């Protein structure tokens, strides 16, 4: 979706403001928002691509007005409402109004270290031959999917070079839409800054993105 999350190349946001001795969280609620989001992955059963899609589904106006963890909470509320885990009426009332739904599992304190240590690897066994080779020139498709995608707007239609092959990985567009993991070959594609941004760009600069095979076409 061509949403506000796809920020590469936008202008006018001002300088990057780094904070000295920045704390990990800036308010007590941010701590809980972070932990609730991680913990709800177990009973919620959604995948990381669905989490990202939920956050990106905010209107650009809302997305840009909210702070980072406000976006997380909005995404979490949406994911829970879609699955009937917590209703918007309950969010509004600030209390539980309906019986809980049966959930597959709950994250216990004891399981946290093991769950974090195993993470969520996305590499899968390849089910199709690898189409592109290192050094090959490819063009990113000029596509504008209405759903979740990880192909940023600023590379669409542009030509780059394959520099890395990462094996087959879960395809986010498919996984976010609930159509299954459908793993595809994942490549790093390096674009020259001039290809992306024109002749005024730094002549030696490059930008690399990680792109699934279906995002690319041979040049």
């Amino acid at each position, binding site marked *: 979706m061509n949403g506000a999350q796809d920020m590469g190349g936008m202008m006018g946001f001002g300088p990057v403001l780094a904070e000295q001795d920045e704390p990990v969280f*800036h308010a007590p609620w941010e701590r*809980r928002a972070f932990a609730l989001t991680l913990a709800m992955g177990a009973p919620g059963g959604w995948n990381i691509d669905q989490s990202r899609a939920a*956050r990106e589904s905010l209107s650009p106006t809302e997305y840009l007005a909210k702070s980072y963890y406000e976006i997380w909470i909005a995404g979490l509320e949406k994911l829970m409402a879609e699955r009937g*885990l917590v209703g918007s009426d309950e969010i509004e009332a600030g209390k539980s109004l309906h019986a809980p739904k049966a959930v597959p599992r709950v994250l216990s304190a004891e399981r946290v270290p093991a769950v974090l240590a195993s993470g969520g690897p*996305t590499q899968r066994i390849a089910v199709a031959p690898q189409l592109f080779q290192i050094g090959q020139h490819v063009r990113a498709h000029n596509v504008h999917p209405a759903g979740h995608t990880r192909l940023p707007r600023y590379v669409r239609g542009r030509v780059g070079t394959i520099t890395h092959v990462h094996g087959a990985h879960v395809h986010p567009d498919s996984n976010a839409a609930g159509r299954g993991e459908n793993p595809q070959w994942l490549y790093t594609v390096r674009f020259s800054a001039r290809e992306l941004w024109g002749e005024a760009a730094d002549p030696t600069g490059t930008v690399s993105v990680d792109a699934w095979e279906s995002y690319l076409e041979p040049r």
Partner: protein
Amino acid sequence: MHDDHDHDHDHGSHLSDMELRVRALESILVEKGYVDPKALDVLIETYETKVGPHNGAKVVAKAWTDPHYKARLLKDATAAIAELGFMGRQGEHMVAVENTLLVHNLVVCTLCSCYPWPVLGLPPVWYKSAPYRSRAVIDPRSVLADFGVALPSDKEIRVWDSTAEIRYLVLPERPAGADDWGEAELAALVTRDSMIGTGLAKVPGEIS
């Protein structure tokens, strides 16, 4: 994504809207039996006190002192980083990129906030902010200038946009003047920003 990140507006002694909303949400989720509040405490404690840039600094210091380790890191960063016990969530598939005399690497996630948690912890606010995400890919030198970093104009800047589940760690250049330093001393020169590419490693005179 505005930068006024602390929404703890002080309405007298009242809590902020977000504080109230998230508290209510937590109590709903606990009451429904979806969430164990002790698990929340462990998650918070992990990322506030255990996981952070000190992990990545160990990786970098080891790569600076052990050429075999550095070769392994550049070939298969996930495995090399796991040798030091750092692995898992948001670091499942790692790639290390090396800064040299000729090349400077800078890591961003223009689409969200992808960041190598096991080696750097949770990202700072600026990394997740619109100014950084928008400008790192189109004008990285001006972003570096925001951090007080000026590189020679002929130095190649390679920007890595973390659009998949590959997570990038920058291996900064080893500063001069610390030739006889051991791993633990060298780790003190390695800043978080130097492992993102928005900074350089400290030089020996910068630390006491």
